[in-house]
């Protein structure tokens, strides 16, 4: 098993590297430098999360119904072209969206939340639409054939079967959202971007990393959290992670 032993060796190497990194940080006093920013990190992380919760929550509340409406058979004609427009919308850089939103709404939390909302909306709406469209026609026929009303079909058959895909959309969207929130600092909404951008400006790597590392950690935690919710909420029969 040469591959196995290679892997084992690699793992050992990583452990040794981490050990030496620890020794180095301890001796050079970097840990102390980081601790200096701890109160700021705490305050800004809350602000950061708050922006995500507002914009992300708003996006979920709008995007899922939007995806549902677009997936209705009566919307078939306009839905595809609308999805195309939304797809083009996704390619606009978030920074540009924020800038635009600032030029209409001024600076502060409101334009930041709006800009983030727009950026988050699209992946969720797209996945909701795709998830619902992906429910097999045989299921839809069975549901109709046994006498479910359109609303019953939606809530008992379509949404449960699309839920896993919808959650995947929410997961991607919120992870991107958290990674994008630092830009909100540029239009005066605060968040961990304050440490990152100020750190860059002052050429202070410790300050910059004090913003960047918590941002990355937040993204990972939120991602795991949504994965957990999906694991619990999506019915076992249509949940690949519980198969």
């Amino acid at each position, binding site marked *: 098993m040469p591959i196995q032993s290679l892997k084992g060796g690699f793992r050992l190497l990583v452990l040794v590297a981490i050990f030496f990194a620890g020794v180095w940080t301890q001796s050079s006093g970097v840990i102390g430098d980081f601790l200096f920013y701890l109160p700021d990190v705490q305050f800004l992380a809350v602000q950061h999360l708050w922006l995500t919760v507002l914009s992300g929550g708003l996006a979920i509340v709008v995007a899922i119904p939007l995806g549902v409406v677009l997936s209705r058979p009566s919307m078939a004609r306009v839905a595809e072209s609308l999805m195309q427009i939304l797809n083009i919308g996704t390619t606009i850089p978030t920074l540009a969206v924020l800038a635009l939103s600032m030029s209409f709404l001024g600076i502060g939390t409101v334009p930041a939340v709006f800009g983030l909302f727009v950026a988050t909306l699209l992946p969720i709406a797209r996945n909701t639409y795709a998830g619902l469209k992906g429910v*097999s026609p*045989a*299921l839809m*026929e*069975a*549901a*109709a*054939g*046994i*006498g*479910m*009303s359109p609303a*019953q079909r939606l809530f*008992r*058959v379509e949404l*449960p*079967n699309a*839920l896993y895909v919808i959650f995947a959309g929410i997961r991607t969207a919120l992870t991107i959202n958290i990674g994008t929130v630092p830009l909100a600092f540029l239009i005066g909404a605060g968040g961990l971007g304050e440490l990152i951008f100020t750190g860059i400006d002052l050429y202070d790597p410790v300050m910059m990393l004090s913003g960047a590392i918590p941002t990355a950690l937040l993204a990972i935690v939120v991602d795991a959290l949504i994965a957990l919710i999906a694991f619990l909420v999506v*019915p*076992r*029969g*249509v949940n690949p992670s519980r*198969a």
Partner: protein
Amino acid sequence: MIQLDNLTKVFDTPKGAVTAADNISMEVPAGEICILLGPSGCGKTTTLKMINRIIRPSSGKVFINGEDTTGLDTQDLRRNIGYVIQQIGLFPNMTIEDNISVVPRLLGWDKTRYRERAREHMDMIALDPDAFLKRYPSELSGGQQQRIGVARALAADPPVMLMDEPFGAIDPINRAVIQDEFLKMQQELKKTIMFVSHDIDEAIKMGDSVAVFREGKLVQYSTPDDLLAAPQNDFVESFLGEDRALKRLNLVRVREVVSDDIGTVSPGDTLETALARIDDYGYQNAILVVNDKRQPVGLISRALARTTKGFCRDHLQNVSATVSLDDDLRKVASLMFAQDITWLPCVDAKGRVCGQITQRAMTHHLGSRFRPGTTDASSSHVATEE
């Protein structure tokens, strides 16, 4: 009772109008299974789906138990019609129990009632409720899923069922098992059933009547036996296949052909008596020996009786086979071919000899109603206009 009155469906396609069902008129009596049979694309599914309005008819009417369904609310109509689709279509997000309980819940049954019903239905389709009710469809085999599909359609006890090739996705062995189970169930339930199939053998086995479709038209509607005995035109004849006479063997039970005029001897009779009786009855080969309970114990062959003296009990030869009254002629024919004999003794449920079945009687029975290529309207189950 399901009654179709000039039911027509024209699809508008980019290539022009397609008439998928052309003035279909027919009637399925209450409690019977009607098979819609025909090659792929002949309009069976379209006709079926117009009954529960998955497809809207272009014209014509559907009556269920005498009531015109045109005015009924679509949801109400469908909840009172059991529907089994070809692709099974179990809801993968629901447990088996939830799948079976869907319609009762839509109808607002209370929980104890529909849960009890789910268990009853699992028993009926021969699946263990404790083992299966809490599972998800993806954890079941194809055959098991198909059974659940049938149970789901039956759950709210609808008087009418529509089934679109319900056993199509199962291997032949399991299919035969499910067909038998279903027929047994139907004997109790007495549903009025429209059943789509493209398999002539399935149609003959399952149907009280068979409706043969061709290019959107109903070309013959008769009992399976009449269909095989008297196909109305070349299309039907070729669709039924060259071996349709043999297929009829499946449909006829020994009871219908048996003759109770059978000569026997008892073990205590002399071979002389046996020979005399063989001659009386004009038997070619042998005579059956039965004990005092009329159970078959052996044979005395003509050659032996002629050349030997003594009692029958000392010269018994083996009885190669017997058939019972509920066996079908296919089994009889198969036994006759295998043993190279022309008659078989028939026994009743207690194993007592109650008659004989001969090759000649079988050919006669089939031949008397075998009218190749005739168009005899009186043989049709319900005459249909073409």
